[in-house]
């Protein structure tokens, strides 16, 4: 029965017998993938065909990406056992800071970006430390910051503009540099003009291509999802995230630095909100006090649709990715149909309910609890 000690472990042939289907059924993102397929089929049947043109797909991807950047980090935090309800307000507040640094203080793009990210990171760390030290639920602590940051954004914007709640002119001064291309505009523009030249992308009546490239937010969205997935599934820190959310005490007893893990995750959610603030401010050349309104809930819902348990310790980043895609598809897709686009809210609530019930069933199967 016993193998000689020190002998290299042998791969048991029965391990490979477990079918990929069985494994796939156990993946947390299963529901979100299924949901996305259903949603796409629905719009394929009801929406006008332009929704599925290259231009149509880009209009879906842009809001999906902006939400998705935040839902992926929100998913990591949820797996780590905490919530951050302040990220929606952080989009407005970080937008204000970014705008003031760029417009009022005339800082170069790279410094304005750095300053905004540092400020957001500090607030994230503050959230984390407050949750850890007070031992209050993060739900309450970050709910406080939902109001504090929204209020600060309003007050700050009025101070910065002399009474307005919109700050405009948020654009790079002079010729755009490297930093500008990282946070604004489109990528793959060469490919898109080639596609247009070969008739694969429709042109506008004036002969210009209907879409210039992939919005930069989409590139960030995909990159962050890939990075988060790698960290979660292939690194020590990833295992610590699962452990911290699964049972913080058990994790501590095993030597996991739970407090550090949670603080870092709060910093990540705040940073992702700041990134969205920077991208959207440059996209619209302005920022206002209502930016990111309710995005904290949408991000959490996308994470839940993606398979995250509300109780922590289980979920996936790819799931949140698909969750955000479902959001974008439905939100924009409705405008391509004859339905009233206010159905979106109804859909959102229904989706959340279904996802939570589905997740509970999945959890019971995973843990064998009855």
């Amino acid at each position, binding site marked *: 029965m016993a193998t000689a000690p020190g002998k290299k*472990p042998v791969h*048991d042939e029965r391990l490979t017998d477990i079918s990929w289907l069985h494994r796939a059924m156990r993946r947390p993102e299963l529901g979100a993938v299924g949901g996305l397929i259903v949603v796409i089929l629905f719009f394929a049947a009801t929406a006008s065909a332009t929704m599925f043109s290259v231009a149509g797909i880009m209009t879906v991807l842009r809001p999906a990406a902006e939400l998705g950047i935040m839902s992926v980090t929100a998913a990591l935090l949820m797996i780590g056992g905490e919530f951050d309800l302040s990220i929606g307000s952080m989009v407005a507040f970080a937008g204000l800071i970014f705008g003031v640094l760029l417009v009022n203080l005339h800082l170069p793009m790279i410094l304005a970006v750095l300053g905004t990210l540092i400020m957001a990171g500090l607030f994230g760390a503050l959230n984390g430390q407050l949750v850890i030290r007070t031992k209050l639920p993060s739900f309450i602590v970050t709910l406080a910051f939902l109001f504090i940051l929204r209020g600060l954004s309003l007050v700050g914007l009025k101070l910065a503009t002399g009474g307005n709640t919109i700050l405009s002119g948020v654009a790079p001064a002079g010729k755009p540099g490297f930093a500008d291309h990282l946070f604004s505009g489109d990528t793959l523009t060469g490919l898109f003009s080639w596609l247009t030249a070969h008739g694969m992308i429709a042109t506008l009546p004036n002969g210009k291509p209907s879409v210039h490239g992939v919005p930069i937010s989409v590139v960030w969205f995909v990159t962050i999802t890939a990075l988060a997935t790698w960290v979660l599934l*292939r*690194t020590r820190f990833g295992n610590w995230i*699962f452990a911290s959310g*699964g049972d913080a005490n058990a994790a501590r007893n095993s030597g996991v630095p739970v407090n550090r893990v949670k603080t870092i995750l709060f910093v990540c959610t705040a940073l992702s909100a700041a990134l969205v603030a920077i991208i959207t401010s440059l996209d619209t050349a302005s920022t206002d006090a209502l930016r990111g309104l309710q995005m904290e809930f949408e991000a959490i819902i996308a994470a839940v649709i993606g398979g995250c348990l509300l109780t922590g310790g289980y979920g996936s980043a790819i799931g949140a990715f698909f969750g955000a895609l479902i959001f974008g598809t439905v939100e924009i897709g409705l405008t391509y149909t004859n339905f009233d686009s206010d159905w979106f809210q109804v859909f959102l609530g229904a989706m959340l309910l279904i996802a939570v019930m589905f997740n509970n069933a999945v959890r019971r199967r995973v843990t064998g609890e009855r």
Partner: protein
Amino acid sequence: MSDLPLIEVRDLRKQFGHVIALAGVSLRVHAGEVLCLLGDNGAGKSTLIKTLSGVHKPTEGEFLAEGKSVAFASPRDALDAGIATVYQDLAMIPLMSITRNFFMGREPAKGVWPFKRVDFRSCDDIVHDEMRRIGIDVRDPTQAVGTLSGGERQCVAIARAVYFGAKVLILDEPTSALGVAQTSMVLKYINQVRAKGLGVIFITHNVRHAYAVGDRFTVLNRGRTIADAAKREIGIDELQTLMAGGKELQEVSAELAGMV
């Protein structure tokens, strides 16, 4: 059995404010020996092992590990000194896979920062191998710990401690929540661990479980050592009597008879 004990405590005291949880306890564990720590609820067993494993600091008394005086600041220190504890609540996370639990906090990383990664595939193989070695066939180490039986979970927790090089294994009531078959699985494993040359401190209030695997028995009562004997010096009835707080078993059954 070597002569230098792996762990020795002399006249250990622990007070929580006014509560005297340990009022002078002494014990020794040698390599290749199972020391059973017996005692009724509230006798101070958990407090004693939490002191040994670095969770509490002793108020007074000597604590030697392999002959050297030690003072642990945290459970991590005790782990580093080779003292591993499997707590009553197991320190296992039901939603995480067996492999991820097994390596939790001690994941082997390779590569250079920031590309350091954990090869969970080979970790799966290690876990599968380690579990098969103790006679538990884990079909799929990526399955959640929650799907294992209580006895299997205890064995995973013990195997983890052994794998990471524990010299002394402290088990806090590992059989208290288990059925007969599961208990025998765990007791068999304790036997194997002893055969590997580890010292084991086995806490229980079931005298029969203790007598099945123990080499020495230390009985605690109200924070004090009231008996310390090798297996050949003491019988199972005598242990049972000591456990019942010094009353003869006949007296206890007489009392019980009076109640019905």
